[in-house]
């Protein structure tokens, strides 16, 4: 083994800088923009990301497996692959599937990063490893933040990245002239005091955090305006990145790896918290984001070289592979996924990440293990739900959205479908069908696959909010025999969930009211039968809770309804003003079957025609009876 001999660190610095420029400008920016521009659906972009990540992991694995005799050749091969991907994307737009370019990019980048980081001792033999790494990292970040570079088109970014790769090839050709040196970790390998897996976990948390924050800034115009909208901001960012990276490298050379990661974590946590919440604090603290990014990016490159090989452990290249697979590719996938899913960075996640990072980087080994577990548990706590809906406006979109969240949370989909099958009896039972494309616009669609209860696609024009409110609180008083649970707890004081759910149900089918009215009008009522005895038996369980046992509109639920139920014995009946027998029967049958939209009078859609006819006959004859007779008949007494 030869001792490291002093050599020019410039090619190594250029190699690191070129790698980062390619990653930042092309892999993380231009390629995604190009894919987004050509994606036919949101799923296509995600598929591209999967190809990119898959290629990256494969490239890292291959780099770890195949040592090669010359590190310089391996690095050259990586730059050539990356450069080819950038050129393909820039020069052949539309002619080559971007998924293939993404896979090639991932493959090249995975190979390149592992070979660069895994050979850092060779690149900087005799030179301050940390500072050189920081210089390469900082220069790359600074270059990418130069306004002319930053604001160019995705295709321009691709060409610049290709140029960076060409520079990388040149640098690696100079590396080839250097004598290979087998060197152990430098004296500054303070990271060895921490197990590699713990540093790996800390880096994963940092990349996760960074990716989520990056996507958040990209997705929110107000945050973009705050961070990288003007030339002044970009120049500031460039300077901050360079200074932070150099500082990080300098600290690394003094054996302060854990301090660098801790500072990076603190910066990212504060910046992420303030960015996620917006307001004046975001203006004050957003610069901590580039500080944190540059600090940990420098450490990420140097870490495989700065950690000692444990007994029976893996070498620098294998450590680099694990680091970039788990922290780099999977960490960023989790961060991007979280930001896309949550549209923010949850406070619970920040807290958990903070606890985990603090103890992993600062505590004793045992304390770190305990805290890592605690951090994981914290991380796993359900995210606070934003369900607070105002009762004031049931047509308000946010109230309806909150009601939908309640519908999902309570698992209503396990008993209720929201899919009326076109051309089937469903349409008569549950209202008009709707185009599939409309359902698929929902996130997520809720067709359900079981009907323990009725279909709810059009429940808004079949049941009034009054009825739904009562039914949710005491289902079997309105629907005897129903297996529906009581949800009275959702309506307790100060709990907005019940009213939000009622508002959501009212919104379902609000656009099909006319079509439903046409269905009802087209329905042919069953012929009159003289089976009022059967009708009387049905009246008790189906009608008496509102209309009362005596049919006078004084049932136990009557007081809870905005519109009092009709007095079926002596009062006027809606929609039955022309009191000829046939018309009365037809109108009554329709009301019994389909209810009266806009009132608490609900239909009995699943009653058989015979039962509808019997009930209609009974109700039709009520005017000829006294209240006592009605009560006697409906209770079944002789």
């Amino acid at each position: 083994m030869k001792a490291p001999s002093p050599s020019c660190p410039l090619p190594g610095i250029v190699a690191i800088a070129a790698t980062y420029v390619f990653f930042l400008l092309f892999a993380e920016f231009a390629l995604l923009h190009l894919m987004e521009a050509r994606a036919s659906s949101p799923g296509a972009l995600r598929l591209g990301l999967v190809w990119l990540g898959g290629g990256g992991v494969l490239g890292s694995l291959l780099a770890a497996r195949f040592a090669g005799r010359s590190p310089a050749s391996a690095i050259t091969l990586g730059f050539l692959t990356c450069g080819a991907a950038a050129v393909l994307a820039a020069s052949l737009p539309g002619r080559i599937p971007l998924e293939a370019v993404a896979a090639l990019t991932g493959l090249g980048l995975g190979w390149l990063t592992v070979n660069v980081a895994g050979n850092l001792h060779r690149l900087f033999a005799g030179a301050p490893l940390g500072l050189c790494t920081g210089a390469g990292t900082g220069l790359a970040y600074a270059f990418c933040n130069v306004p002319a570079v930053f604001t160019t088109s995705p295709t321009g970014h691709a060409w610049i990245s290709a140029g960076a790769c060409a520079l990388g090839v040149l640098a690696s050709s100079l590396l080839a002239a250097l004598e290979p040196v087998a060197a152990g970790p430098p004296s500054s390998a303070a990271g060895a005091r921490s197990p590699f897996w713990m540093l790996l976990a800390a880096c994963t948390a940092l990349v996760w955090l960074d990716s989520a924050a990056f996507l958040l800034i990209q997705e929110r115009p107000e945050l973009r305006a705050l961070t990288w909208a003007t030339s002044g901001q970009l120049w500031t960012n460039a300077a901050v990145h360079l200074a932070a990276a150099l500082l990080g490298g300098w600290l690394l050379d003094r054996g302060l790896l854990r301090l660098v990661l801790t500072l990076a974590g603190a910066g990212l946590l504060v910046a992420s918290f303030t960015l996620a919440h917006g307001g004046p604090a975001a203006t004050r603290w957003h610069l901590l984001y580039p500080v944190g990014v540059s600090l940990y990016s420098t450490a990420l490159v140097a870490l495989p070289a700065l950690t000692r090989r444990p007994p029976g452990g893996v070498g620098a290249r294998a450590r680099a592979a694990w680091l970039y697979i788990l922290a780099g590719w999977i960490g960023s996938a989790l961060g991007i996924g979280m930001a896309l899913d949550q549209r923010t960075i949850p406070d619970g996640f920040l807290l958990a990440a903070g606890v985990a990072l603090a103890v992993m980087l600062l505590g004793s080994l045992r304390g770190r293990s305990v805290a890592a577990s605690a951090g994981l548990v914290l991380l796993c706590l359900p995210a606070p739900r934003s369900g607070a809906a105002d009762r004031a406006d049931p047509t308000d979109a946010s109230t309806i959205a909150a009601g939908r969240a309640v519908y999902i949370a309570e698992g209503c989909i396990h008993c209720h479908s929201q899919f009326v099958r076109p051309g089937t009896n469903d349409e008569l039972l549950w209202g008009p069908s709707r185009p599939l494309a409309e359902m698929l616009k929902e996130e997520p669609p809720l067709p359900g696959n079981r009907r323990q209860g009725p279909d709810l696609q059009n429940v808004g024009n079949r049941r009034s909010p009054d009825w739904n409110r009562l039914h949710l609180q005491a289902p079997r008083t309105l629907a005897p025999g129903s297996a529906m649970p009581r949800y009275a707890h959702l309506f307790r004081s100060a709990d907005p969930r019940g009213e939000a759910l009622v508002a959501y149900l009212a919104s379902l089918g609000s656009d099909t009211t006319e079509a439903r009215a046409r269905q009802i009008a087209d329905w042919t009522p069953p012929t009159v039968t003289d089976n009022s005895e059967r009708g009387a038996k049905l009246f008790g369980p189906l009608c008496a809770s509102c209309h009362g046992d005596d049919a006078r509109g004084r049932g136990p639920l009557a007081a809870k309804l905005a519109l009092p139920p009709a007095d079926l014995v002596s009062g006027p009946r809606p929609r039955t003003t022309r009191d000829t027998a046939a018309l009365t029967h037809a109108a009554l049958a329709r009301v019994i079957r389909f209810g009266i939209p806009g009132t608490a009078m609900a239909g009995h859609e699943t009653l058989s025609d015979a039962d509808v006819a019997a009930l209609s006959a009974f109700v039709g004859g009520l005017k000829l009876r006294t209240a006592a007779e009605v009560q006697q008949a409906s209770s079944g007494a002789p």
Partner: protein
Amino acid sequence: MPRASGFSARLGDRVEGNAAQQPSTPHPLAGGPPFPQAGQGLRPRHSSAPPSDCPASGLRSPVCDLADLVARFSLGWLAAANLAGLLLAALLLWPELNDALAPLTYGRWMPLHHNAQLYGWCALPLVGLLLRVFLVPGRAANRHTLVVLAAWSAALLLGAVSWLGGGASGKLFLDWTGAARIGFSLALTALWAVLAHHAFRRLAGENSFGFRVSSFGSAHAAPAAALRPQSSVFSLQPSPTLLRFALIAGLLLVPTMMYFSAGPNLFPPVNPNSGGATGVSLYGSTLGLLLVFAAMPWMVALPLQPGARRSRLTWPILIAALSVFATANHGHGSHHDRDQIITLGLLFLAPPLLARDWRRFVWRPEARGWLVAALVWGALLVADGWITFLPGFSERLKFTNALVAHSHLAMAGLITSVNMVFLLHLGDSSRVQSALGARTPFWLWQLAAALHIALLLALGWREGAAPALVLGGGDTTRLFYLVRLLAGAAMTVASLWWLTASFRNRTSDLLAGAAANRLGP
């Protein structure tokens, strides 16, 4: 020495004697000699001495056997899922019970039951199978097995907390959201990391990467040979490491894809006329399961029956089946479309082909009943699934209890039977063999599952014609639900029996009892 079971055309027959005396063909994924020798299990079978990789103190440790561990975790989730199912059946029968449980009402328990079955009971034996293929035996293997199973179960527990706490995603089959979604992806990542770690350890111990050079003279010749139509990968004897490596690369996509697929804006193709899955989707998902079923004997290195040959049909059939899936219409196909019906109908070929393939291997005697049950349930499942998909039948049965019957046919019938076979072949655990080979719980489960399914199917058929039957909750429905509850209770008892038996010590009583109460003649 227990006898090895031949699952042959003579289902009642078994192959006598030690399979070590039989010609057996190791397969590329098997790192060690095939069953019923020591196999790839973490300790030798029927050995009174500790295995080399498992010291005496370790032998007494529960961490020392892959089969034991996987069985305990899997059966634990089966029992948990069944208990949740039992509660659900009771809540349907006595809805007032919901008041006592509020806010933990029916809808919050459903995802727990559903997902404990899907991601606990159904998935963990497959996880065990992967571990069986990848792990390099040793102390680390035992520790890593425990880590993977614990991480997986922790993710499921987190999911349980989430579902019961109202953290559902609204998607029926990928109900992971918020922290639970991240936790599950991390558990998958942990599994992948362990598999990759062991794959790397194997790589480090090999001189060549890829195909076995000695077979072909040069490493470059092998890929070309692999393209020969009459060849199969297995007959080429590629390096097991290559296959493992390929599998590792493929598995890497799983955590990310699972994470993204669970998102609210990705939804599978929908049958525009029924709101359910398309025929091609059903065909694809079933095909995936069938591939695992067919690969299982290779993955656990089962020896071939004396005189049995490698099937020349395996690869052409596999390629044809995958080609059908690749070229089928993956859009929103209707059950009125002829191609969807025909594609789904191709699954009728699966049970006989699978039976033919499985017959060529020597199985453990305790697995024979489960194998027969798996094929019977599989055939019924295919028939039920296809008929339910047909126009007319779909309109009548979709959204009814018949669909619940179909789910139970798949889970309680087919998957449970196959999983028991998996568990029996993960290693040489006498506890697992005694537990899963016992006759009484086997028949209790099978009969109760059959009754459960028949009841729901009958109720669904009636409900399809008269929805009020279930919506109104009349006496007939309550009677159906009561009997169904009893059947569910019987299945729960069986699962608890297996779970407790998997923890029992190897006492002479147990062995004697098991010997007298073993499945098979």
